[in-house]
């Protein structure tokens, strides 16, 4: 079956920023994304865990988004200003998809 190239963008960000990020992504023309939970983590600002917090203020989420390769620049341009001041760990990886018409 024929495979098509695409990009998988994963952004780890503070939970209270989730909606702002996905709004920005929609403005960048992204047609779809999924949000995954993050349980715990560690970084320059120390350790945290979902069980340590009341409310989601302390937590992170991971937003995942499959896009066509040519859409990546626009996505970054829209998302970057927003994540820059925040945790906002953006990774971009190559992947392949079966149904390019979905993206």
């Amino acid at each position: 079956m024929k495979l098509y190239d695409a990009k998988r963008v994963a952004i780890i960000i503070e939970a209270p920023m989730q909606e702002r990020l996905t709004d920005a992504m929609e403005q960048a023309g992204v047609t779809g994304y999924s949000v995954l939970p993050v349980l715990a983590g560690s970084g320059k600002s120390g350790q945290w865990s979902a069980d340590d917090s009341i409310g989601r203020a302390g937590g992170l989420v991971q937003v995942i988004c499959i896009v066509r390769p040519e859409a990546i620049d626009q996505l970054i341009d829209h998302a970057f200003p927003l994540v820059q001041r925040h945790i906002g760990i953006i990774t971009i990886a190559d992947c392949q998809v079966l149904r390019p018409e979905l993206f």
Partner: protein
Amino acid sequence: MDGFFSLAIDNLGSPLILSFVLGTVAALARSDLSFPEAAAKAISVYLLFAIGFKGGVAIAPYGLDVNLFSALIAGVVLSAVVPFLAFGLLSVMTRLDRTNAAAVAAHYGSISIVTFVAGTSVLTSQGMSSEGYMVAVAAAMEAPAILSALWLISRNGSSRMDAGLWREILLNGSIVLLIGSFLIGLVTGEEGMREIEPFIGAPFKGVLCLFLLDMGLIAGRGIRNSRGVLTPGLFAFGLVMPVIGASLGLLAGSLIGLSPGGLFLLAVLSASASYIAVPAAMRVAVPEADPGIYLTLSLAITFPFNLTLGLPLYLMGASAISGGLS
């Protein structure tokens, strides 16, 4: 001071506080005891709903009167003013930069609803009553402190506010739930209470024990992770600031003529520091402030202090003032 010690021992020997201590000790000993986040979230909805509803029922026979409004105004003013005091104190006692100091200050102007709930439970144990509308005051005190802190950071706080943030702050889940259930209690009154008392009334204290156990776990982990974050100055601030806040609360409360119970609760609100609504707002509006500092102070220092020693102290204060006034 005799009264304080007996009150403090009463308080420290209650299942509520001992559950909190158990959680703290377990976390400090690095036990893997844990309470699922979803369950803690659900219990906090329960607590807010119950406390709001009971407040509404309590004033249902009288309706909303002018005292409610003076209390609301007192609360809003306290919430807005305390951050300036806290900010000043921090610049004297610690070396926090402007941004972090303002972020911390916001937490102390705002409130901790669990501390408030524990306060109401102390009142019940002492057979004292309070103005039912104090829950509405609690809700009103959540947000103003945030605006004060943002103003402190940029002298033009609005530059950090977008429309979304306004809505998030004002329609914050706990505000909406407190006010909403308060209104439901007001509308349904004693009759509504009878229907749901076996859920929100009798088991309330036991549920609060479990919640405080979890709070203890969180506070204990906070203390464990505080190495390197907590300077002596910050630590001292975390103990001094709530007492100052409580004093202001007592002052404001006696100016507007609250009952001894209401006076106590206003002191508790003013003494307590936020760890839900304000951190979330700071994450969005002041991401460069270090959550390690403000969460540790609020959760691991001030919350345990208020719960164990603060409550009896503020109750003493409230009784003394009311005695003096009467």
